[in-house]
């Protein structure tokens, strides 16, 4: 059951203090030299407000760019193996866009569909998501084409929508959200007759995701992918900034006495990703790698998990050195 309340800007400041007092770390969008990153904040004033999106995604909070999986010591005829126990603080992710918040669901599908990934789960367990509805959108955005929206509650424990009078509409969506409210219930006021929809950014859908998923199997051998990927330079920027891309590499770093095994982000767009030690590469051309990225997100993943591995945030488009606009390419595929 969703509870709908209101909170003033001043009360929000008090709520930040209460969150801090409860031992929670608050991560929110912070701006330095025009770059918006997820950073530790103590007050709402430290949170960047003019931004549309974080450059990187909030997946870093649950799937860091580098993390230790295990460590060991090697001795003659003996190995001492140590499990990694990440030190994880209770964390509030404040001010995530609804698209980002909904990305955690895809990540959960990847990390827990079969065996469970304890590193991801330990972080998710300690995490509360405070979403912030969008009142603006840009040319890269396409959340409404993939089942999301500027005020979507999916993935948020608590969703804020800025009201005209400086207050925020507060939707309390989960038990974790209720815990936040319970920290300082007096800060919240009842909300009466607030028209959330009217406050949100307007974004027309550009294509129908389910129609795209239905269409892709028939387009596998199409020239379209070679055509589209001609401009692609084959880096991993799109995947690394993506809130749902979860492909990773496992790397060993060691000297003669001890070592550790690290997990780090990887991307299907990189040639190295599938390259065998023998030199054989199942996806040797950039066109095949571009196709894999599209198919993984919009064909294979939906077939297995029922929804697309994309939240329409457009981060990939903004991060791309050569403007491989995903919305545009998907719309083109739908029309092929």
């Amino acid at each position, binding site marked *: 059951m969703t509870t709908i309340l209101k909170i003033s800007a001043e009360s929000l400041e008090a709520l930040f203090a209460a969150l801090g007092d409860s031992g929670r770390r608050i991560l929110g969008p912070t701006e330095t*030299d*025009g*770059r918006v*990153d997820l950073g530790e904040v103590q007050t709402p004033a430290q949170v960047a407000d003019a931004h549309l999106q974080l*450059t*990187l995604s909030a997946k870093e909070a649950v799937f860091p*760019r*580098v993390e230790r999986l295990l460590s060991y010591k090697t001795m003659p005829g003996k190995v001492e193996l140590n499990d990694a126990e990440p030190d994880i603080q209770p964390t509030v992710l404040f001010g995530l866009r609804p698209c980002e918040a909904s990305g955690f669901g895809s990540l959960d599908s990847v990390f827990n569909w079969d065996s469970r990934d304890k590193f991801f789960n330990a972080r998710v367990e300690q995490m509360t998501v405070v979403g912030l509805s969008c009142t603006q959108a*840009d*040319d*890269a955005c396409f959340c409404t084409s993939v089942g999301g929206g500027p005020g979507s509650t999916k993935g948020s424990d608590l969703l804020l929508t800025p009201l005209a009078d400086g207050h925020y509409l507060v939707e309390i969506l989960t038990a974790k959200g209720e815990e936040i409210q319970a920290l300082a219930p007096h800060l919240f006021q009842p909300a009466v007759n607030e028209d959330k929809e009217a406050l949100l950014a307007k974004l027309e859908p550009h294509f129908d995701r389910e129609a795209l998923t239905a269409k892709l199997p028939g387009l596998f051998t199409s020239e379209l992918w*070679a055509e589209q990927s*001609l*401009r692609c*330079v*084959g*880096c*991993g*920027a799109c*995947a*690394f*900034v993506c809130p749902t891309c979860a492909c990773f*590499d496992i*790397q060993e*770093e060691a000297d003669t006495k001890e070592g550790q095994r*690290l997990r*780090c*982000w990887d*991307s299907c767009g*990189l040639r*190295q990703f599938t390259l065998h030690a023998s030199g054989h590469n199942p996806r040797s*051309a*950039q*066109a095949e790698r571009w196709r894999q990225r599209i198919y993984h997100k919009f064909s294979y993943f939906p077939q297995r998990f029922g929804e697309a591995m994309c939240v329409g945030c457009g981060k990939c*488009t*903004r*991060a*791309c*050195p*050569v*403007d491989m*606009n995903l919305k*545009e390419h998907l719309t083109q595929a739908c029309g092929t």
Partner: protein
Amino acid sequence: MEVLRNKAQDLLAQGQAQIVIGYEAGTGGIRRPSFARTAADTARLVWDADCISNLAGYLTRPEIKRMGKTAIVANASTLRALLQLTAERQLAEDAVLALAVAEDGTVTELATAQAVTDHVAALPDALSAADREQMNLLASMSREERWVYWEKELQRCIKCYACRSSCPMCYCGTCTMDCNKPQWVPVPSHALGNLEYHTVRAMHLAGRCVECGECGRACPVGIPIHLLTCFAEESVHQQFGQKAGASAKLDYALGTFRPDDKESFIR
């Protein structure tokens, strides 16, 4: 713009080029690479002051090479990279037809390396005023301040390799980063791995960097990494008197030597 589109159309129609690489309008009106193979495609071509990216990286791509003779709409960066790629024998001399567009929209065909060299010689310095200012600022800092500056900046690196992928000079089939016997540079993007990656990149581009700044523009997290490669290039220029991208006949500065190379630090 019409002149350019017509020129591209003519080249394709007369078989003088099978593909014309240029610029088109992208998301929110930004300029992005464009590939014209038919008369219809040429209608997308645009040219203005926003066409700053270096397109030369596409010239060494097998997908493009397979298409046949290439014409390329070339700004100063692209022309310099074209010369450097020729000097490094990645492109046959005169294999590419460069189209230089003047401010009034007239198009000059630069069909030979010599023509490109002459054209480039008359163009202003590659480094932008803002980059020059940032370089001077860094030079004026104490060593410790510079270390903190780069430590903080490089900490943001996620090793997506957008810098490498968008650099026209990073054409190696297998990059040092991808060699793992031994693993010279750590793959994960931790602080040490990032520093090593970016110093290797700068060293490998010293004497080869055409200072187009493409790597810095490509960086999704906004690290001014082009300053590193530009610095290394300028170090080569000052000490050895040669500049990458100035000619199609240039020995690799760090692949050669002069017995009287002057230094002041060897004891």
